[in-house]
């Protein structure tokens, strides 16, 4: 197998595999190809692992199987036309993706967003965070073998998707945000239903805790596995819950507050453990904090009247210039860097996708661990391939 080559030689990944193989021929490691069709690489991630027995001595992440050329596509689309594409970045938290893009656009155009729209956005973004973390918990637990958690989480995510459906008709790929506001106001009955969800959710969250939080098997699979120190993580560009699991007190919602996060009462979830378990705890706490934020937003929105769209010209033509804006997406720092030449289409658009940046620290995390730990590590940095490959 080794001599024949895992890949065709011409491509970049072929060269990568080639280099790795040259190293391999001197030793007696077993090279195994994990993915892109593997049950727990979360989509089309591919890892080339060098194993000594079951211990990993080297690894290489190969990406690009879901590459759609989004950044290039943006150059041939008008600004509003690109918005639905952002949904397809991290498709399980599309609202947060919209959020990053519209914030960048508003910063570029100097738009003032109505307060009501801002709170709706925050609420939707936090609901999205909960649903994204639920999917993460579900798949992470499934990867480690706890099958029941998976179905519990998906049941509860359903309630959030119903809320999304009420607001904009779509459940997954919502495209609800607009440059300058949101597409439409909250429908009747939304606030009550959202309240119900916030009331039930903490109880449901306790169910998941009962199943795995103190489970000895869960602990032995996650504690002291795939460690990464805060400093190392920062150097590798790790962000979001993954870096907060290494004790780094950094959350864009607090550090560079946007859209009124500074007016709400909530805490950053930080754990000093540096391991898979710490990242797990961080996300669990984040779900509860998000629930708190949603509740506050609901209270504010109930009393508040007003428009949900700013006055935006029919044809969006931002002034010449460049801008970078970032939000705390469920996976980490999501940034949009937009260069405008004054026309209706962006001159260049670069997306700083959190999953992509987080994935880089995977080889550091798994070195010296066992094959089973790779699965735990992938789960713990919570990647979505739509965002990695773009």
């Amino acid at each position, binding site marked *: 197998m080794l001599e024949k080559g895992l890949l065709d030689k011409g491509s970049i990944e072929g060269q990568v595999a080639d280099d790795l193989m040259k190293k391999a021929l001197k030793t007696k490691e077993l090279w195994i190809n994990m993915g892109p069709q593997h049950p727990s690489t979360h989509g089309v991630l591919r890892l080339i692992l060098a194993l000594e027995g079951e211990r990993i001595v080297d690894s290489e992440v190969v990406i690009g199987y879901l590459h759609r050329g989004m950044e290039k596509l943006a150059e041939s689309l008008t600004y509003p036309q690109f918005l639905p594409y952002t949904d397809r970045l991290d498709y399980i938290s599309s609202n947060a993706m919209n959020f990053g893009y519209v914030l960048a656009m508003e910063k570029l155009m100097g738009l003032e967003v109505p307060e009501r729209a801002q709170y709706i956005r925050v609420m939707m973004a936090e609901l999205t965070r909960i649903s994204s973390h639920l999917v993460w918990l579900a798949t992470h637990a499934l990867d480690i073998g706890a099958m029941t958690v998976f179905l519990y989480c998906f*049941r509860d995510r359903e309630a959030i998707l119903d809320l999304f459906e009420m607001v904009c008709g779509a459940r997954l790929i919502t495209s609800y945000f607009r440059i300058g506001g949101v597409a439409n106001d909250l429908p009747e009955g939304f606030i009550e239903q959202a309240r119900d969800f916030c009331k039930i959710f903490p109880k449901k969250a306790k169910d998941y805790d009962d199943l795995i939080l103190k489970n000895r098997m869960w602990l032995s699979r996650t504690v002291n596995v795939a460690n990464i120190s805060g400093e190392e993580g920062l150097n590798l560009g790790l962000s979001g819950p993954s870096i907060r699991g290494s004790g780094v007190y950094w959350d864009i919602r607090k550090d560079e507050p946007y859209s009124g996060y500074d007016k709400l009462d909530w805490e950053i979830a930080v754990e000093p453990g540096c391991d898979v378990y710490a990242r797990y705890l961080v996300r669990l706490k984040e779900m509860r904090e998000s629930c708190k934020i949603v509740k506050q937003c609901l209270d504010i929105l109930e009393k508040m009247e007003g428009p949900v769209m700013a006055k935006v010209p029919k044809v969006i033509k931002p002034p010449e210039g460049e801008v970078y804006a970032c939000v705390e997406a469920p996976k980490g720092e999501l940034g949009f860097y937009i260069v405008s030449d004054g026309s209706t289409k962006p001159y260049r658009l670069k997306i700083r996708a959190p999953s992509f940046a987080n994935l880089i620290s995977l080889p550091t995390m798994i070195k010296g661990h066992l094959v089973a730990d790779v699965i735990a590590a992938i789960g713990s940095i919570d990647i979505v391939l739509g965002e990695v490959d773009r």
Partner: protein
Amino acid sequence: MVQELALVIIKMIVVFSLALLVVAYLTYLERKIIGHMQLRLGPMRVGPHGLLQPIADGLKLFVKEDIVPLEANKWTFYFAPILTLVMSLVLLAVIPFSRNFMVTRLNIGVLYILSLASVGPMGILLAGWASGSKYPILGGLRSAAQMFSYEIFLGFSIIGVLMISGSLDLVKIVEAQSKMWNIVYQPVAFVIYVIAALGELNRIPFDLPEAENELVAGFHTEYSGFKFAYFFLAEYANMIIVSCMAVILFLGGWKGPVLPGIIWFLIKMCAFFYYFIWVRGTFPRYRYDQFMRIGWKIMLPVVLANIVVTGVVMMLA
């Protein structure tokens, strides 16, 4: 003579066909129970409440294309699943389902089961090697280490029972429990047996040889169609054997009030199935090295101590 032979053959046919049917419906039961544990319905489409699902599944596997990978060692590849299935089915021959209902009574029944059961993992090991692919090799290696070592604990946990009943004959072991079930005298051995059984059966939390999230499907990654069905059937047949052994060794076999013996036997056996399914619905999976550590560093000393204590108590009593 001819009559006796005919009787044995009829018994064999009844036991094995029943066993295969039970095995098929065991998969149904598992899917149904675990479905309800997980807020879903399980199979519902084929037949009322999905009752014909196992048959549909069997048919599907039967008509599937028989794929042999290019790199595979063809004959070993074919031989491995047959070996595994045969080795688990022949064990049924000595299981006494009631005082009179068994294929054959062997005075070394326990020994027969332990020794033939340890041939089964050879099939898995061979399957891993013969597939000529990397994930099956890893799965095969894991299972070799896992099943061979857990057989040791399984064997040791039985020794206490054998000391008490003073026989290797399964019928005599049950008869020795007329007054009190062995589980009362041997609770530690029972716990060890139950844990080791999970390891022996490759089930969660010890389903490492086929940990689907790590090794795709482990040793049977390359298997499809009826060859895969062989492994599948063998796995569930092993579940029956392990449950039967637990019932016979610890829970008084067919003994029980009012109802006929065979019914009692089946009730106790089903309780065990349920336990296996329940565990699967609840626990995550251990890591390979942790699993071996539990075996050699915790279970082995405990089970050895259990034998010593049993011996000392028997000497004093």
